[in-house]
């Protein structure tokens, strides 16, 4: 089970993020998770929306550059060492993490961490082999 994430290229100039969120608001798109990777002159906004298809459509219509990416959402125990345990699994299985962020959703007492890994199929196998819980976009 994977999550569809949309990534948007943003120039580092004032008002761009406001514009992006305004467009989503005006189209009634709700956001489930969001993170921004920033560099000196540009940023990449990563979003998991309730309706990714619609989000992609309205953003593209407004000339944003949008890319759909598959990511893993994994439940992580909300206690010391929760994240470490998963990191160790990835490390020992030679799966590289490009980036990760935490979603707003909590499933019971667990947090959902979103991982972008270099080999998503291997990532999914690790989830299965270790009885971890991968969530879908609609679960967020």
């Amino acid at each position: 089970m994977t999550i569809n994430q949309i990534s948007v290229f943003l120039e580092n100039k004032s008002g761009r993020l406001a514009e992006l969120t305004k467009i989503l608001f005006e189209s009634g798109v709700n956001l489930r998770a969001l993170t921004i990777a920033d560099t000196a002159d540009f940023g990449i906004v990563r979003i998991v929306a309730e309706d990714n298809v619609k989000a992609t459509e309205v953003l593209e219509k407004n000339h944003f550059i949008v890319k759909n990416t598959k990511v893993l959402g994994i439940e992580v125990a909300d206690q010391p060492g929760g994240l470490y345990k998963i990191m160790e699994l990835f490390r020992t299985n030679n799966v590289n993490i490009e980036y990760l962020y935490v979603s707003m959703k909590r499933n019971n007492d667990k947090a959902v961490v979103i991982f972008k890994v270099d080999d998503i199929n291997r990532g999914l196998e690790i989830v299965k082999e270790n009885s971890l819980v991968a969530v879908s976009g609609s679960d967020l």
Partner: protein
Amino acid sequence: MIYNPQAEQADQHTREAQQLKNLKNLLKKVYSKVPFYKEKFDKAGVKPEDLKTLSDLKYFPFTTKSDLRDTYPLGLAAVPKEEIVEIHCSSGTTGIPVVDAYTRKDLDTWSECMARTYCAAGATSADVLQNAYGYGLFTGGVGAHYGGNKLGMTVIPISSGNTERQINVMRDFGSSVLTCTPSYALYIAEVLKKMNVDRDSLKLRIGCLGAEPWSDNMRREIEEKLKIKAYDIYGLTEITGPGVASECECQSGLHINEDFFYPEIINSETGEVLPYGERGELVFTTLTKEGTPLIRYRTRDITYLYREKCSCGRTTVKMHRLFGRVDDMLIIKGVNVFPAQIEQLLMQIKGLTPNYQIILTRGENHLDDMEIQVEVDEDIFSDETRKLETLKNYIFNSVKSKIGIYAKIKLVEPRSISRSEGKAKRVIDKRVI
């Protein structure tokens, strides 16, 4: 002082007689020795003998920068290879460099021109020349060096860069003449201030500056900050390098060394020769050049010519300081760059769109900065910053190695580059010069 009174103060009749004699010889020589010129003259239906007076030169075909590229590397050489003693190339430009090959005599001519330049600026053999032009294939460094030698100055071949050392050397060796680009001269002034060096501990009094456009305002600023007199020098690799023309103590227009370089001003669209006082494209014929002679070479620089009784005593024709270019060539940190070069380079990078913009600024340090903005589209957008940063570095390195400029690369959103009437504005030059 005048370095060569006989040449620089000749009466017009004597000078023209000499120019005509040299021009006749030159045309004969290139027609018989350089197939490129023979073909060109034949096609235009002219023979060297058709030139009876200097103004008959207008019947002869022009030579252009693209001709120089087509004949790369030594297609224009009019002497056997053994007689060529030195070669220089233009800085950067559209892939194929422009070559100037010199015989021993050509180097003497060049040295003399630069010696005249320093002399016109008031330098003598007692001066110490700090040559902060870059040494190498670029004509600035060695041209300035040879001229300093010729005049008998003490030459310090420090080259460009390492400004703190420039200032230490300037102080320790008592440099009195500085030669470099005007923007570098201003930068030296800033560093001087930052280092808290007492200006009175320096012997600097003259700046011979060129290789990039600069205004009278910039001149005033340099003169004030460095407490020197700053003189404009003009030259281009194709013709010989620096020293084609230079200012005298009057600082009003540049005296052309017309005994070596015969100037014309033309209407750049029709090719028609324009009279004195009218603005147009500057064209040169290298009257005495042996290595790679040029007939009616179109410089693409815009100016006008005039003859006046200059109070310095020179009788040579003067050109106004440059007004600009006929084409879109940019001069950035002394390097010639055409926007088309950048475009070509970007187009070679997979996935890049032709939507780019070049932004030129002159920063607080008075040096030119070039930023290349490139629009990101679906093909190159990656959701990993690392990949986009890699792309930026790749563009940076390509520009550095192929054009010779350290440009800032900025990835921008699609459609953020303004398009006027459907056509994108490629260059935004914010430099105040």
